């Protein structure tokens, strides 16, 4: 097969993935719409959850906090379950198509497919989806689907319209196995940070709703999501995975920078922003451990970190002059 057909196949794969993911997004949305508690059931919803929670514990003497349990399938209308099933299948399919797109691209360029912004975006979106579907095999994350698939679609849309670059070889400074190590881990980390940011936003919303806790506030699909406390804990779990990964990314980048540019740290804009991101997330973990600091404020710091992650990709790559000029634009 010639490289040209491979390129076409890769692009078709990405386009089909986007179509499938759009449908998945709709199905996820339908799921959330269908689990909104009906007006009359709102009053019962809370005690019902408690009951279900207690039932899942093995020892009768123990009552785990109700919030650790995701909305139980039993209380969902059949239509919601059906929508969730469709969403799940479509998300898997979209993910696999995107993996195929990335693999074909790699085959086409005969190298690791992380050489320009288009490829970073593609691979980052792929890892985000893989992270989500992987995690959802271990716990019920159907409620999170919409908040993952939507940003992924936005990124893919930007990738094929704004960042698209024809496949080609690498600049000499990128020809190193450190590319595979540093950039792969970096994109994986961004994927985990994305999961963390989605959870963080949901936590802040849920927290607001729980604090306001009026009837109106609880009459949304948010009432069927895990409690604020559980969401906060999930936010934290994702970040303690991502933070060491980012630490590794920065160290690996420094080792590579020494090889390619002669000095391990040059305060090049990309390095500055990686450092800023690192410090923000370090501050998040710190804030969470600081007594007297509200968890909400800690999560805001993490979200500030994520804003920097986005800026680091979308703005620093393109607009700030530095040695990391690999955007291919």
């Amino acid at each position: 097969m010639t490289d040209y057909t491979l390129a076409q196949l890769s692009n078709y794969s990405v386009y089909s993935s986007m179509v499938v993911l759009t449908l998945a997004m709709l199905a996820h949305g339908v799921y959330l719409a269908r689990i909104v508690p009906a007006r009359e059931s709102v009053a019962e919803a809370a005690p019902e959850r408690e009951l279900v929670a207690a039932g899942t514990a093995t020892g009768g003497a123990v009552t785990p906090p109700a919030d650790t349990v995701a909305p139980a399938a039993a209380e969902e209308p059949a239509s919601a379950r059906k929508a969730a099933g469709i969403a799940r299948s479509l998300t898997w399919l979209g993910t696999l198509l995107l993996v195929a797109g990335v693999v074909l691209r790699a085959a086409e360029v005969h190298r690791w497919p992380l050489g320009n912004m288009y490829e970073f975006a593609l691979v980052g979106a792929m890892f985000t989806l893989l992270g989500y579907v992987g995690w959802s095999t271990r716990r019920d994350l159907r409620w999170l689907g919409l908040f993952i698939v939507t940003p992924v679609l936005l990124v893919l849309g930007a990738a094929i319209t704004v960042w698209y670059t024809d496949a080609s070889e690498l600049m000499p400074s990128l020809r190193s196995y450190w590319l595979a190590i540093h950039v792969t881990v970096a994109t994986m980390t961004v994927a985990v940070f994305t999961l963390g940011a989605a959870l963080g936003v949901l936590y802040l919303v849920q927290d607001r709703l729980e604090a306001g806790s009026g009837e109106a506030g609880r009459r949304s699909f948010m009432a069927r999501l895990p409690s604020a406390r559980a969401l906060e804990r999930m936010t934290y779990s994702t970040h303690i995975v991502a933070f060491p990964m980012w630490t590794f990314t920065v160290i690996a980048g420094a080792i590579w920078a020494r090889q390619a540019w002669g000095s391990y740290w040059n305060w090049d804009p990309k390095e500055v922003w990686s450092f800023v991101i690192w410090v923000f997330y370090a501050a998040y973990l710190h804030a969470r451990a600081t007594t007297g600091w509200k968890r909400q404020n800690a999560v805001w710091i993490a979200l500030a970190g994520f804003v920097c992650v986005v800026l680091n990709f979308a703005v620093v790559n393109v607009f700030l002059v530095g040695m990391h000029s690999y955007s291919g634009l």
Partner: protein
Amino acid sequence: MSTDQSLSTQPAPPDGGGPGDGITQPRLGPVGWLRFLWRQLTSMRTALFLLLLLAVGAVPGSTFPQRSIDAARTTQWITDHPTAGPLLDRLGFFEVYASPWFAAIYLLLFVSLIGCVVPRTRIHWHQQRSRPPRAPRRLERLPAHREEVLDATPDEALERMRTALRARRYRVHAHDATSLSAEKGYLKETGNLVFHLALIGVLVGVAWGHLLGWKGDVILPVGQTFANTLSRYDTFSPGPWVDPTDLDPFTIRLDSMDVSFETGDKGKGQFGMPRDFRAATTFTGPDGRAERREIAVNHPLETGGGTVFLLGNGYAPHITVRDASGTVIYADATPFLAQDNNYTSVGAVKVPGAQPDQLGFAGFFLPTGVIDSQRGPHSVFPDTLDPQLALTAFSGELFPGGAPQSVYTLDTAKMTPLPGKDGTGQLRILLRPGETFQLPGGRGSITFDGVERFAGLSIRTDPGKTLTLVSALLALAGLVLSLVVRRRRVFVRVGPHEGTGRTVVSVGGLAKDDDEGMDDEVAAVLSGPEGTR
């Protein structure tokens, strides 16, 4: 701290002081004030604040040009912004990472870090060797708790639980005959301390490299040899503690320079992009042994006394200038610096030995030259498909005042341009390889003999880099430990079961921070290594 039940996430007071210290605070003498300030500085809130400040403070370094990275762009920026420029300059915005305020942030942060970590290390050291605290009276009040009735005597039950706890790697101690106290996860705090201490190591490594490292750049045309002495460098920046006269004696001869560019791909922004740079060299070390070594991007040459990086390349046209009698007064491969991706390069030829006035030439070297009226002379491809040299000529004084000047530009303050053929305008010289141009007024001739490539080499040492790397990896390891390991305490009480002669075993668990798994942990302890049933 070792006996309290809360396993607080708050760092211990830095001086280990008890509540008594707080009471004396209202009447603060100078010492009291210092203690107060010290305590503020080493609080976690301050650390958090300084961390956020550090993050925000680092940003301007990426949005404003930095002098240490691109001095020319910095100067240009200041010129373009006559009001903001000088003001921001005074505030250090063009040298953020060397500015006093940035240093103040990170130094305060690290003072705080030391003030925080040293006492914590002491406490942790003692805690590691002390026993888990006494079991609380009512275990059912703990966040995780389970009870079970066993067919065993209280002693047997206790022994079983002890084995179960040991199997789960708890440190177990019995303060009395009916209870057990167990704790594990000390590595969490160890990891945390290692992480924070290693950050200090990173900072020390960076500082060490700054003080004792040096870097020098040299442009080396093919065929020439570089000897590692101060005078041979084009630029040399030593750290404050470096003796630049004491460099390792080695030489590098550039045998050839291989460069390739993208020619196949006509895609957006790809045609003509660099694809490969390789410098073949002969390296002669201090011991006098010569060997062939290749330097490429991503493959520096380690000499032992500095690492040689290939950071740039370009063209050095070989130019010969003769006087009216035909005597050679200048002959050299003269590097021209590339200005764009197609290697439109600028440079200058300075001929101090010319008569009656000194001669200077300035202009462009174009590997694939096109000269049009709109863009002037420029190159359309980075390789030498149609090499041309486009120069203007000046006569007068080359080095007015003897001030140092760049070898790539001509200072024309004390020079006048040579006039064009018809006696007006400016003389424009366009040469292809092998061509010679006769200068007007009996000033001789200039010949473009041919073109060589040059390698832009950067030679650097950083004695702190190993410390920095090792510390950074330690920090990573410590971080993973502190985030993965869970610090947990488990308490067991046994008592007779009313009337049955069996034994009630009550197990309570307490974790640092919220710990979803504590419940399962208590259940697992209770079900024991071989099962309690």
